[in-house]
């Protein structure tokens, strides 16, 4: 009997440790980026609006990752000695784009226009979480179809004050 309990305890403990290690180190929710960019410093402490860097959020299907020129525009002057900024300068000198790892990655068969959502009055934080407090960007929402449908069926009234038109139609989002 004692042995059985021991096995169970060891099993549960192993599972818990493994699960956490997996969630922290091997999950795609917060990948390790080529440059340790902190949204907390930029959007939180310095109050830079989201749309200053992600300029296409209200104009296109994708929100857009800023080009290196935009980063360098400020960091020519600001905090040039920091090791992470040195990496940025290296990319700039080599004329290479920074290979950011996409955190909010949707499958190929999904049509998600940022434009439509931003113009409808959905805040960035509704889906992306409180980015201004994240040192390492983490994906807070599951981005699964059920999660999308939560709003598209009846949850939208609380967010944008009206129901989504044709929200249930498959071809609204699939392509």
């Amino acid at each position, binding site marked *: 009997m004692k042995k059985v309990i021991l096995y169970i305890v060891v099993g549960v403990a192993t599972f818990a440790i493994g699960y956490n290690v997996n969630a922290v180190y091997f999950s795609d929710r917060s990948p390790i980026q080529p440059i340790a960019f902190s949204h907390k410093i930029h959007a939180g402490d310095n109050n830079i609006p989201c749309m200053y860097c992600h300029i296409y959020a209200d104009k296109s299907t994708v929100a857009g990752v800023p080009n290196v020129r935009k980063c360098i525009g400020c960091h020519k002057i600001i905090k040039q000695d920091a090791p992470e900024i040195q990496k940025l300068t290296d990319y700039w000198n080599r004329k290479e784009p920074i290979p950011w790892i996409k955190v909010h990655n949707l499958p190929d*068969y999904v049509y998600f226009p940022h*434009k439509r959502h931003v113009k409808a009055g959905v805040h960035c934080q509704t889906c992306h979480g409180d980015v201004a407090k994240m040192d390492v960007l983490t994906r807070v929402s599951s981005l699964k179809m059920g999660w999308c449908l939560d709003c598209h069926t009846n949850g939208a009234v609380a967010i944008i004050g009206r129901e989504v038109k044709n929200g249930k139609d*498959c071809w609204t989002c*699939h*392509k």
Partner: protein
Amino acid sequence: MGKFLDKILERFKIYRIPGYYEKYDHKWTMVIDLDRCNGCEACVVACNAENNVPVVGKEECGNKRTLNWIRIERYVEGEYPNVKVKFIPIMCQHCGKAPCETACPVYATYHNQDGLNVQVYNRCVGTFTCATYCPYDVRRFNWFTYKRDEPLNQQLNPDVTVREMGVMEKCTFCIQRIRAAKDRAKDENRSIRDGEVQPACVQSCPTGAMTFGDMNDPDSKVFKLAKSQRKYKLLEELNADPSVIYLKRVMKDGSSATHEE
């Protein structure tokens, strides 16, 4: 158990009330003037390029595994000096009372708000039932996952999914273009203008034989063309109520020539 069956029946009924599409905003319709069609197959090429339709090759075509969303049927009549050739482009007719919709066991094909008969690739399990039910033989099945060689994968349209093995596919009336037009119209706070949406086949037609528009809009070109005396629909006796309207070809001697005669 009874309740469960009732629920299924209820859902079944929602999609299958005849004429239920009339309450929708748009009723996309295509008018094809056969008098103008000269069978150049530019529409076929345009469709393949726009919708990521793979080129399957000679061998697979021989095995009846063709993958064209639109095809040109040819009918040749008579002996040499008096030859009559008729062409008729056939794509998915987007039937109002579509036989394929009643067939699908997983609701992968259904009618949407715009009077379009659409196929959801993610739901499709490839039972082939819809293709068997389709009287126009326009549904195509992906027998294999077709790979594009290195430079050719660059020409894939990002607005259209690349389908994989085991999925049924068919003409969508270029729904991605309709969606883009709707997006534009919404930004400018207006309704879609007549002629703003053009599927790839309509756009590429050199003789202007095809016209695309909204049947619900009485000012549209399509609405006026559909009043023509020459109009007919394919296999009308089946009562599938297609959205594609053909205009008969009138020959020199005054006889009309449709492929049905």
